[in-house]
């Protein structure tokens, strides 16, 4: 995989993450579950920021960033706070795997950026009640 392909693949993943976090945020309640709502809103903003940064990085290479899909399959039922939290956790695990792949496919400053993003995803998993892993971002 070339660095550009790795960036494009990661961007595709961030498009999906932004979409899913948007859905999750819309299905949570700011008044009934303020902590969860804040987590989801923060996750949405973080992934949106990373999506935009990836878009810039790809433009900087003179390429056209991959576009988002019209919609994405939702990961099962999203009715209860536990289901919303679990879905967000799965998004973070997948995204961490994507950033692991980006570390693998890049070098220099792009790799450093991916390292930071992977680290953030790993810690966000804990905020979503995930457990620490020995090798986050390696297998998802």
């Amino acid at each position, binding site marked *: 995989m070339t660095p550009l392909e790795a960036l494009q693949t990661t961007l595709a993943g961030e498009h999906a993450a932004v979409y899913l976090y948007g859905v999750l945020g819309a299905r949570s309640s700011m008044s009934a579950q303020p902590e969860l709502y804040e987590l989801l809103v923060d996750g949405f903003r973080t992934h949106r920021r990373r999506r935009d940064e990836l878009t810039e990085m790809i433009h900087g290479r003179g390429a056209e960033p991959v576009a988002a899909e019209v919609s994405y399959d939702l990961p099962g039922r999203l009715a209860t706070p536990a289901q919303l939290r679990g879905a967000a956790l799965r*998004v973070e695990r997948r995204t961490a795997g994507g950033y692991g792949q980006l570390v*693998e496919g890049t070098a220099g400053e792009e790799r450093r950026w991916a390292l930071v993003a992977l680290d953030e995803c790993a810690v966000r998993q804990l905020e979503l009640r995930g457990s620490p892993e020995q*090798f*986050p971002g390696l297998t998802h």
Partner: protein
Amino acid sequence: MTPPRPTSGSSAAPGISRRGVLAAALSLPVLPLAGCALNNPLDSRRTPAAEAIPALAPDVGVAVEAVARIRATEATLTATTQRHAALAAPLAGLAAMHTAHLDALIDAVPDRVDTTTTQAPSTVPETPAAARRAVVVAERRMREELTELALRAQSGLFARLLASMVAATGQQLAVLGGERG
């Protein structure tokens, strides 16, 4: 990345296994070390081991450094839990993580390279709270060092393995109380 499946088009890239990473690391060429009295690469660039490292295949040198850094941090952790038994439980996650990471790296290190640390063990602070803070400082330093090694690695797979270790350490430090640094 393996994004959720779009409702139309787009394929997902497969993830990789740790075994796959290690297989790649192990396939790196290793230059012969005959005549080198290799010891601790942490000491300084003047030691025989440190002088030998640049002569190794680039990522083998990175692996040797990573093992040495983790072992040095592990030694700090062990000394701390021996002095303050009450810290053994809260630091157990870090200890298990170090073991897993060393297991993952050790096969990438040539047999003749001794990565045991010869650094003078740091004095464990008298109070558990101070000792815990000292562990956090050591872990943060190791994280920074592993980050730099991940950036130096020429093998993308090996860089990914090191990056994963950095992230795992970040998780453990977060569990300890938001002291990731």
